[in-house]
């Protein structure tokens, strides 16, 4: 393993940041220089959270209880449309839950903020800024002095192995590099939690595997609490300490599965393969149920003969 020389310092609390950092944990807030310590912050609690979108009869989320312990890697998995992203957006403060409470280290979450950094599926990097400037953005907003910013941006770039690409514009980077910049942009803020919304879904399989390895390495090194959302069981098993299987319509927690495999993991090991099989079985029923439901309401594949008009007479009625 690489020497753990890179550490990301916590942001100094500034008067401009209207969401004060949890002061009660001030003495415990260690800037984990190596991967073995747990920072003590980053306890994300969702309590009885329900969310209903206007105009929709089903609950996107209903009575979801979820606690992410500091330094834990939690992966939420479920079929598409089951409310995974809603869950993450509620945790990020982008969406207000209809009922229930969301808190981070005892502080209720009301608005998006840098202590809950999010990595989006479509990276959400600013195309008018270079990779380094994108990473710097959050520090600039937090009022970090220019001289401190450069060092921290460099550290973050090194963390994702993108130091040579620092001055490239976003569209000049590959898909995988963009996600790494997005991760660096989140980490440079020294967030208490990292929220990841299917960050690797749009990448090709090889890049995804590479990023899985890098993310594991990053996590081992920084020990951030990570709440990761995906629809891929394989991804969940590879990365997670704990897998939450979400039920759809209404969205609620169906099962929790502990993954007791040491990090970093060998993705080809028999353990992983076995576990993937088990978990896939768990959610297969769920996926099938949802798919059947969707098919009822929207579209049903039909046999060619049932399509109505005989292709031979197509256009005759015109």
């Amino acid at each position: 393993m690489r020497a753990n020389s890179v550490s990301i310092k916590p942001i100094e609390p500034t008067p401009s940041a209207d969401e004060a950092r949890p002061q009660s944990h001030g003495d415990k807030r260690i800037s984990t220089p190596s991967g073995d310590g747990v920072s003590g912050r980053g306890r994300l609690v969702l309590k009885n959270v329900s969310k209903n979108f206007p105009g929709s009869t089903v609950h996107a989320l209903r009575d979801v209880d979820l606690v992410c312990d500091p330094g834990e890697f939690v992966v939420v998995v479920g079929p598409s449309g089951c409310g995974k992203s809603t869950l993450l957006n509620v945790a990020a403060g982008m969406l207000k839950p209809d009922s229930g409470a969301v808190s981070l280290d005892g502080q209720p979450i009301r608005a998006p903020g840098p202590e809950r950094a999010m990595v989006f599926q479509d990276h959400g990097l600013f195309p008018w800024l270079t990779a380094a400037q994108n990473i710097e953005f959050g520090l600039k907003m937090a009022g970090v002095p220019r001289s401190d910013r450069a060092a921290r941006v460099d550290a973050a770039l090194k963390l994702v192995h993108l130091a040579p690409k620092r001055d490239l514009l976003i569209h000049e980077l590959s898909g995988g590099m963009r996600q790494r910049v997005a991760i660096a942009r989140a980490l440079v803020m020294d967030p208490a939690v990292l929220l990841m919304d299917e960050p690797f879904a749009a990448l090709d399989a090889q890049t995804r595997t590479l990023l899985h390895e890098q993310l594991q390495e990053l996590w081992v090194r920084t020990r951030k609490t990570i709440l990761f959302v995906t629809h891929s069981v394989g991804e969940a098993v590879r990365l997670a300490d704990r897998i939450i299987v979400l039920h759809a319509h209404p969205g609620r927690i169906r099962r929790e599965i502990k993954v007791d495999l040491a990090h970093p993991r060998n993705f080809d090991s028999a353990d992983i393969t076995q576990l993937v099989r088990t978990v896939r079985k768990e959610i297969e029923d769920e996926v099938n149920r949802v798919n059947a439901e969707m098919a009822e309401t929207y579209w049903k594949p039909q046999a060619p003969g049932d399509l109505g008009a005989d292709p031979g007479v197509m256009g005759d009625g015109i």
Partner: protein
Amino acid sequence: MIGWKPWLFPAPSHVLDALLGLMNIHTGFGEPISSHWPRVILEPGQHVRALAPWWGSPLMKAILVSGIRLLEGFAISVAIGAILGLLMWRFIELDRFLGPLLLGLQTLPSVCWVPLAILTLGINESGILFVLIMGSFSAIALVLRDGLRNIPPLYPRAGMMMGARGWRLYYYVLLPASLPALASSLRTGFSFAWRSLMGAELIFVVDKWRGLGFLLEAGREFSDVAQVAAVMIVMVVIGMLADRWLFAIVQRRVQTRFGLAT
């Protein structure tokens, strides 16, 4: 030379002659038969150096006058258009009311504002500016609004996630994100403004301040088809150059930066 009527359809040489004539360069291009052109025509006893210089010519003065009017009017028009575009983007209710109205205004040819301008403001500079502004601000507002609507909602979300709030979100995220929209609205707005200005100058004759439109109209009054054609060419060339060499380049830069250029 059967049926050739140069006073109806000027030969290119006539047009060139008129163009150069407007620039104080007098040639023999326009003469029906000339064995020794180009040349400078001198009055008896006149010296070449005594001729009025090209930069003091009617054409240059007209371009200057029209250019100043354009800058003035376009600046006001951009300000109005940008504010309206922003408000319409921000407040959907306002857009429901103003959107169709501005779209309607856009279909109205800008010279249709001339009678109103003459009656309310009189035949003066403000009348010309009024026509110019009315002819171009709606296009700017609409193009800007549409461009702003195309900003991916992910940008403000990402900005908020990184702690940008209030004016900082506008200044550091939404403003740069709207640059492509701004660039194309300026480009569209400019061509509208130029057209409106030329139309207005054609009708408004403000003494001492003679723009390109005035030269065109003067050509008509003296039945000088060559001058009419020459001034039209100048109008087209100026519009084209401004678009090509200014706005297109700005737009291209922005698009390259954003990775939108093909």
